[in-house]
């Protein structure tokens, strides 16, 4: 056996080439690539991300104005050659504002979903792994928070964090969003814990934390990713809802929700103020949901036994 130490990595051409395996992740990726709707959704999402993050910068560099630049003399114009989406009441370019708003919405959605997934995974994994009384207590806490009207909770959190800045917004959304992830992960861990490979790890003396990290979480990652991809659009929607209540991003910063809120107020007069942000939001949510559905199909455990 010690002779193997000098062998080093097997060299090609010596008959010792290693046969590469195809992991379940690679399998899932291959399936996702075959899913046309998901790929269109992903391409669209990437395009939107690109536009939202680079668009406002380009506009400022080329035309010298930003989402907050007002031109009161040029207020509330319908779409035209100069301003494709028209301008709002204060003469701000609506296209720039939609792109910037998309940027805010995407950021809030991603960060809030990340917070939710991280907190939820750790909480659920610990709860499910420890089991027994600890699990019982941890899950009752989740139940209690879940029973509270969550908007109320977000509003309180935002009030505690003072002012409605972006950080407090996504922390607030994330703090509520983790509940479902925690439940999903806990359920997965509970059933995985009884699987023979986890028992096998235990029988070999693998420690608790290592078991969680090496055996339990990788096998829960599928549902976590699926839930994450579906959480992003729902977080965007909730941010829009908060903006609707005036609790979201504060002016002059726009988010898609805030823009729709503004547009809805002037809907009868300045239609473009509602139509463009609303369309942008719809396209974004559609794309994200297609990606989410595709990821779910690709990772579907029922497909695993196939072939």
């Amino acid at each position, binding site marked *: 056996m010690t002779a193997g130490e000098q062998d080093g990595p097997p060299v090609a051409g010596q008959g010792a080439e290693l*046969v590469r*395996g195809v992991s*379940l992740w690679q399998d899932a990726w291959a399936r996702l690539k075959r899913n046309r709707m998901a790929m269109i959704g992903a391409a669209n999402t990437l395009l939107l991300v690109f536009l939202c993050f680079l668009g406002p910068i380009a506009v400022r560099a080329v035309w010298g104005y930003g989402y907050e630049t007002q031109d009161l003399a040029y207020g509330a114009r319908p779409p035209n050659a100069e301003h494709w989406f028209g301008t709002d009441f204060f003469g701000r370019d609506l296209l720039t504002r939609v792109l910037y708003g998309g940027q805010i919405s995407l950021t809030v959605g991603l960060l809030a979903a990340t917070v939710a997934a991280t907190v939820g995974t750790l909480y659920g994994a610990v709860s499910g792994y420890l089991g027994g*009384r*600890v699990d019982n207590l941890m899950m009752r806490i989740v139940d209690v928070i879940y029973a509270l009207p969550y908007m109320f909770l977000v509003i309180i959190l935002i009030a505690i964090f003072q002012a409605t800045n972006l950080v407090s917004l996504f922390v607030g959304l994330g703090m509520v969003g983790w509940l479902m992830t925690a439940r999903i992960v806990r359920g997965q861990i509970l059933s995985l814990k009884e*699987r023979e490979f986890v*028992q096998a790890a235990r029988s070999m003396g693998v420690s608790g934390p290592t078991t969680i990290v090496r055996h339990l979480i990788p096998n829960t990652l599928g549902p976590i990713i699926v839930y994450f991809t579906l959480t992003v659009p729902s977080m965007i929607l909730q941010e829009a809802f908060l903006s609707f209540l005036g609790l979201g991003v504060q002016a002059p910063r726009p988010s898609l929700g805030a823009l729709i809120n503004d547009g809805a107020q002037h809907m009868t007069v300045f239609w473009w103020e509602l139509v463009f942000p609303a369309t942008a939001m719809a396209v974004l949510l559609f794309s994200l949901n297609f990606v989410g559905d595709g990821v779910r199909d690709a990772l579907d455990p029922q497909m695993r036994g196939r072939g």
Partner: protein
Amino acid sequence: MTNAPRTERGSSAHTAPEVADALLSVRDLRVHFPVRGRLGGPREFVRAVDGVDLDVPRGRTLGLVGESGCGKTTAGRAALQLLRPTTGSVTFDGRELTGLWRRRFGSDRWGPELRELRQRMQMIFQDPYASLNPRMTVEGLIGEPLVTFRRAQGRALRARVQALMERVGMDPRYVRRYPHEFSGGQRQRIGIARALALEPDLIVCDEPISALDVSIQAQILNLLGKLQADLGLSYLFIAHDLAAVQHLSDRIAVMYLGRVVEEGQARMICHKPQHPYTRALISAVPIPDPAVERTRRRLPLVGDVPSPIRPPPGCTFHTRCPDAQERCRTEAPALRARADGRRIACHLVE
């Protein structure tokens, strides 16, 4: 689990002869699981294992057979300390294991000494599909015990894993493959290689072939036999397939409802069973030979296995025993040694 009631019925232990040079000795082992009784009713226990004595001789195989629900798997896991025995003693290489548990955070854990000893006792699992983490490569799977106990890393680890793969008859080039890319038999080889990684003295094989195809079962049985001969391993071979058990075992213990009813040389148990349950069990095993099958007489068993929550008083087998007498209904027979070297728990066998 620790506050399970002491059993009121006669203990079968202490009459067992000391088997010379047993690597693993189990005495009066009991594993009782609490179950939720009816609302407001008294707390009840499933007596999964209820007073079991076993001896695994060094370098030999003890077969543990019985039908589903008889407690053989639980007995194997409790012997390995994968779950904490309720009462009883388990000695491995002369050391008592049951006292090495620690209680932490409200649950039972292995103490450091037990963790060290556990390296010398490994397990092979029944289902080669469920017992391998689907996200890990063969290298990760076989190498896990080596990494856990810091025996090897990097290139040395790869070399050790590949040597183990060759040992169990696998192509070492497949070290980076994943379990789902292998057939059931190959996966079971991975499981065996993993159990061998720490160079253990004892391996508990829990139904290692029952999930495999017929033509593959023989390959795995032969592999286990060869590994034993090469490495001097001791096996506790748990299975319901009596023919396979007799093939590999030196001695066989037959369990019924949490207890050993008969134990002895494999040949004796299979060819001249004495306990009424063993006799019925052996007679029910089909033999792949039509001429023999035509002339065999089956000893039918009536009824079902009673619940292990409230096992019948006296001999637990009396509800199904064709020869049961009054004494069997009241008095539990002890597992007593006979002149021919086997042990039987039955009032009716002289």
